């Protein structure tokens, strides 16, 4: 499964993205497993709400953090995320 640049991305319905107070981290929860996220990964995933494409996620993040040139990093992470089933497109 590969990332489609034209399709909006939504967070997987069979996973849960959640703030963990004890760890001070966002985590992904799924059957008998957990992935701890760093801040940038969590920021990307929070924008996967079924309305935004890769380009829109990049531009929102660049705006939010007043920076530029995030395309490669964000795309690379979303490729990993789709391979792991954390996000879907359709």
């Amino acid at each position, binding site marked *: 499964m590969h990332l489609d640049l034209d399709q909006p991305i939504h967070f997987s*319905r069979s996973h849960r993205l*959640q703030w*963990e107070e*004890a760890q001070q981290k966002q985590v992904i*929860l*799924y*059957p*008998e497993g*957990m992935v701890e996220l760093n801040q940038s990964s969590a920021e990307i995933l929070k924008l996967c709400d079924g309305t935004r494409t890769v380009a829109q996620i990049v531009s929102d993040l660049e705006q939010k953090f007043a920076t530029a040139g995030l395309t490669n990093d964000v795309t690379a992470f979303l490729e990993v995320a789709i391979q792991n089933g954390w996000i879907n497109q359709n």
Partner: protein
Amino acid sequence: MAGSIKTNTPPRWLLAELTYACPLQCPYCSNPIDYARYQAELSTEDWLRVLTQARKMGAVQLGFSGGEPLTRQDLPELVKHARDLGYYSNLITSGYGLTEEKIIQLKEAGLDHIQVSIQASSQELNDHIAGTASFEHKKAVAHLVKKHGYPMVLCVVIHRENIHQMAEILAMAEELGADYLEIANTQYYGWAHANRDLLLPTQEQFVTAEAIAQAYKEKVAGKMKIYYVVPDFYEDRPKACMNGWGTTFLTIAPDGVALPCHSARDLPGLDCPNVNDYSIEEIWHDSKAFNFFRGKDWMKEPCRSCDEQDKDFGGCHCQAYLLTGDMYNADPVCSKSPHHGVIQDAIDAAAHASLAANEKPLIFRNSKNSRLLS
């Protein structure tokens, strides 16, 4: 249990063994052989308190297990409380007694996932191993779990009686639409230890089965995830048991005894504490049992000077105890262990038993046998 505040990692995984009652009689059950001795069960209020306390410390993955957790009438109430606290809750069930009504009720209560166990790919063998006619019902339950939007995990425990069905088991899981398939090679504790001569496959059988499973993994990539639990008797390094003692996992047995691993009840001298007497925080930080194998001070050679001690923490203490009689020994699965020969002895004994004309019967897990063996 007064003690200083330590900087232990908090528990992440809480395994709530709600009951030892089970309609199935699987001869590899991980419950203790003498489970029939422990009749007492925690009340609903006790479980609600345990869930709250463990969540406050940081536990986030929650397994409702047993026995068969569906035999507890308060399961929906516990599930709801778990959801309110923010747990990701997993129901680990035989599927026996699970109706569509219950599946909907648990979904509404906030259950995240259901893991259904199936014993084999054919009705005859499934029902024989389970000791109960349950195959068709389990398949129906698997469909219902999918229908109601749960991620569905199918768990099949592998041993000598069903290892030849590996290809059919994989195809069955795909056909049932499993999102995850756990192929769990039997770990030889509890009832499986008692039945080891009849359950342990040969190395040749393992190699063949594993090759089939690995090839299938690629075939279904992106559709069904396959977790393959390795058979540690055919490894030369031990598993990193429990991710390190008292670092991640907390098991609460049906009677409220807190265990650093679900087999630890069999280890001598741990004085495992009970949630009726202490809070989860006291148990985790201060109890003798949870500090027993924390860190490395307990290690003897070859672990003490081993450069892999941070990788496997010396392996499994229960296995060391069961196979060498000393829980401080290195897990004998390790080829560096002076007791490593006991593994080959076990493999040879199982191979010999499989060729014997008068094979002794499997000891099924039930209260009668539990009392006889206690």
